[in-house]
C-alpha cells in the first residue's frame, strides 16, 4: 500500500541552513550537510532542500552543495533554487538528486517543464508554487503565485496555470503557503482544496505544520499526500530552540493510519 510522505523541507542561504517566518527573517540554524546526516539516521521518507536566494541573486544552483548533499542522502532528495536551464537540471540529476524543483523558471516559461521532462523524465520534475493569500473588498479572498522568494507577485491565475501543468505533465506539485510559513498553526486547507480539485498530480503541501496533529489532519483530508514542514522538524518548544527531529515509526503510522484503513 502506498503511504503518504512526511517530508522535512530545509532552506539554504549562503550555504547555511536557515528557517524563515512568512519568507522573512531567515534564522541561521547550522550546517545543511549535518542536517541531512541527522535525517538519514531518523530514516525520513524524503528530503527537500531549497536555496532561497539563488533566483533572487540571479545565480545558478550551488552544485558544490548539491553534490555534498546528494552523496549524504540515503533518502530521496529533491533540490530547488535558481534552476533555469536544461543543463543545470541534467547536472543536478546526475549528481544524484531524484527530483529537481522549479519555480520562477516554470512560471516565466511553462514550456521549460516539457523540455526537461523529455530529458530526465517527467517524474523528476517538481514544480513549487509559492502562494500568498490576498484579500480585496470586491473579489474576496484570492491566491497569488509569487516568485523570487516571495518578493514578486505574478499576474497569473492559479487554476489556469495548474490546468496548463496538467496538459504538460509533471511529477509533483509543491504548494507552499507564504502566509503560513514558519507560523506553525496548521496548513491552509482552503488553498489545498482549490488545488486538489483541479489536478491528479502528487501534491506536497508546505507551510504551517506545527504539530503531529497538523500532519495527521492533512493526511485525513487528502489521503496520499506529501506532508512537508520546515519549522516543525527543526525547532523544539515555544522558544524555538534548534533541534532537528522527526516522528518515530510508530507516530508516522499514527499519521498515515487514517489512510491505511481506507
Amino acid at each position, binding site marked *: 500500500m502506498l503511504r503518504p510522505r512526511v517530508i522535512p523541507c530545509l532552506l539554504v542561504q549562503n550555504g547555511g541552513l536557515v528557517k524563515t517566518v512568512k519568507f522573512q527573517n531567515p534564522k541561521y540554524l547550522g550546517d545543511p550537510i549535518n542536517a541531512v546526516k541527522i535525517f538519514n539516521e531518523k530514516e525520513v521518507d524524503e528530503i527537500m532542500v531549497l536555496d532561497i536566494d539563488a533566483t533572487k541573486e540571479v545565480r545558478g544552483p550551488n552544485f558544490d552543495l548539491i553534490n555534498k548533499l546528494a552523496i*549524504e542522502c540515503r533518502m530521496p532528495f529533491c533540490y530547488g533554487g535558481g534552476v533555469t536551464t536544461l543543463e543545470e537540471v541534467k547536472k543536478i540529476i546526475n549528481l544524484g538528486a531524484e527530483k529537481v524543483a522549479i519555480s520562477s523558471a516554470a512560471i516565466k516559461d511553462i514550456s521549460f517543464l516539457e523540455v526537461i521532462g523529455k530529458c530526465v523524465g517527467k517524474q523528476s520534475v517538481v514544480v513549487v508554487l509559492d502562494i500568498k493569500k490576498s484579500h480585496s473588498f470586491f473579489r474576496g479572498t484570492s491566491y497569488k503565485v509569487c516568485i523570487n522568494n516571495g518578493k514578486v507577485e505574478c499576474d497569473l491565475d492559479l487554476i489556469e496555470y495548474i490546468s496548463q501543468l496538467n496538459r504538460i505533465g509533471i511529477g509533483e506539485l509543491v504548494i507552499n503557503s507564504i502566509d503560513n510559513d514558519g507560523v506553525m498553526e496548521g496548513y491552509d486547507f482552503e488553498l489545498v482544496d482549490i488545488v486538489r480539485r483541479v489536478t491528479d498530480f502528487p501534491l506536497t503541501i508546505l507551510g504551517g505544520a506545527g504539530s503531529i496533529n497538523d500532519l495527521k489532519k492533512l493526511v485525513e483530508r487528502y489521503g496520499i499526500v506529501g506532508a512537508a514542514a520546515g519549522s516543525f522538524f527543526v525547532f523544539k518548544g515555544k522558544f524555538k530552540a534548534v533541534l532537528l527531529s522527526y516522528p518515530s515509526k510508530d507516530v508516522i503510522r499514527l499519521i498515515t493510519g487514517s489512510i491505511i484503513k481506507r
Partner: protein
Amino acid sequence: MLAIINYGSGNVRAIKNIYDQLNIENCIVEKPSVFPKETTKIILPGVGAFDETMKSLNNSGFRSLLDEKVLFDKIPILGICVGMQILAEGSEEGELEGLCWNKGLVKKFDVTKLDFVPKVPHLGWNSISATRESELLNGIDYGHGFYFIHSYYYCCKNLSDILTTTFYGDSFASAINQGNIFGTQFHPEKSHANGIQLLKNFYNLKSC
C-alpha cells in the same frame, strides 16, 4: 569487487556511499577499459526517460562489455529503476530497443484502475510482496517496503521471472530475477535500512 556502471544515468554515488559504509569493496566504473577483472557483481543504475537512458548506454561503449559479462560470464547484475526497465525488450515510453536480457515490456500505468488521487507517477513508499524466495530478500521488511518514483512499470513475459510485486491500482513486478539478472523498480539506495539490506544481500549472493 562490485562494479557500479556510470554511463551518465542514475545515482551512482548514493550506491557507492552505501557500499563504502558497509566496507564492501566497490568502484564506480567510468569507462569499459577500466572495468575491474575481479568484478563479481555489477550494478546498473538508471533514471530518466527510457530512450535517453538507452541512448546514454549505447553511446557509452559499455554495451558490448556488459553483454559479455552478463550473458556469457554470468556475473550477477542488478538494474535499478530505469536500469531495470532497460533489461526489457522495449518500453511504451520510447522507441528504442532495450537490452533484451529479459523477456519483458515496460508499460504505462493504467490510471483508470486507480480509485484515488494522485495517479501518476507512482511516487513514495510502498510495500512489496515476495512471489518466491530469494537470497536478495533476506531480512527485508516487506510491509515497510521501498521508495518508488516511476510512471511506467515492468511487465514480465515469463511470470516466473517476477520476484516481488507491489500494488498500485494493480499488481506489478517491483523486482525481477532471471538467473544472474536482477532488477528493482524501487530505489534501494534511497530506502534506508531495507535498501541497505538489499544491496548487501546482492553483494553476498552465492547461487543464481
